[in-house]
């Protein structure tokens, strides 16, 4: 495999391998919390922040604890516990030292533990055998890509609030169709860079 520059991975994670449009990760909160732009932006920031921290810590745990002890098969449990612990810790630290940020992100933080994107990024970086720098590029890129998707969707949903939609399509149905159209648009980026 050619060693990819971390910056290229960063770009690819935003555009061509977008968490939502290419990997379908983090769909649950994506559909639930995309009614208003400010809330979507808040959640997006929280996800990006947590992604960057968890992937670094999970990378270190996996390479320096699990691999030497040959306990790779335990990675699911270890990752989910470390993600839950980091989110909890982050909540306490933010509350103590950065109350403004805490109140901005507050309600979203606990939600993040069960966001598939967080665990997904950790698992992807293990499967693709990224180096440390590549993992950082990948996780931050994924977070920004996810934010981009959810904010764009929230913007579109605000616009169609009063549009006449077929009864059965209201809510999740129309959201999925919009997402499909957005995914089609993102397919256009696929010529730029490609990571498998």
């Amino acid at each position, binding site marked *: 495999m050619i060693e990819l520059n971390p910056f290229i991975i960063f770009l690819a994670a935003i555009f061509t391998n977008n968490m939502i449009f290419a990997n379908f990760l*983090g769909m649950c909160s994506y559909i639930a919390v995309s009614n208003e732009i400010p809330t979507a932006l808040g959640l997006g920031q929280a996800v990006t922040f947590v992604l960057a921290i968890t992937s670094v810590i999970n990378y270190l745990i996996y390479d320096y604890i699990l691999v030497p002890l040959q306990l790779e098969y335990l990675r699911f449990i270890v990752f989910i516990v470390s993600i839950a612990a980091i989110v909890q810790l982050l909540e306490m630290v933010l509350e103590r030292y950065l109350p403004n940020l805490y109140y901005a992100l507050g309600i979203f933080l606990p939600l993040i533990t069960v966001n598939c994107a967080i665990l997904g990024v950790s698992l992807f970086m293990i499967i693709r055998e990224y180096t440390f720098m590549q993992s950082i590029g990948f996780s931050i890129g994924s977070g920004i890509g996810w934010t981009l998707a959810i904010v764009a969707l929230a913007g579109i949903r605000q616009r169609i609030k009063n549009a006449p939609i077929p009864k059965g399509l209201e809510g999740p149905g129309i959201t999925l169709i919009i997402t499909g159209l957005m995914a089609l648009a993102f397919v256009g980026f696929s010529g730029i860079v490609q990571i498998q």
Partner: protein
Amino acid sequence: MAKNNVKKIFRMGLWEDNPVFGQILGICSALAVTNLMMNSLIMGLGLIFVTGLSSFTISLIRQYTPKHIRMMIQVLIISAYVIIVDIFLKAYLPEMSKALGPYVGLIITNCIIMGRAEAFAQKNPPLESLLDGVASGLGYTIVLLIIAFFRELLGFGTIFGIEVLGDWWTPWTIMIMPPAAFFILAIIIWITHNIKEKNEREVAK
């Protein structure tokens, strides 16, 4: 356990409260693996196994789990079963394990399992919880297979890897790409909503 009860659990899991089109849960992994029917089937079986057994275990120890740390315990139980599925796939179906990639691990964060644990297993006896888990898993698998059926048939001209449509068929490349998954799921939600609404109207009459 009354027979009626079993029937009701399955009807809820498969149709009325179907996790995918009824409650919009677990679509993260539902969409990613539906490009081939075989992938969807294995993924569905794995999920049925995990949902059923984790609901069973959670219900079994529900009286002994302290309320405020129950989420953590549920996640740990679920991860343990997911690890079993992962090891099994690696040992017996290595090809499949590679194709599903991280999505096997992502069963842990699949909201269906936590949802069933919270909504049902927390309050009901073990055997019924097991059935409830299996029913929800089945509902999920069926939707997966429906999506995969259209995507594989139109995208490759095959079903379960067997060629159905001959050489005359030009595969629709878009069907194997992500956007098609969103569109097909949206259409399924649309159709089921309409059928449900029609039934409700008839009942109201």
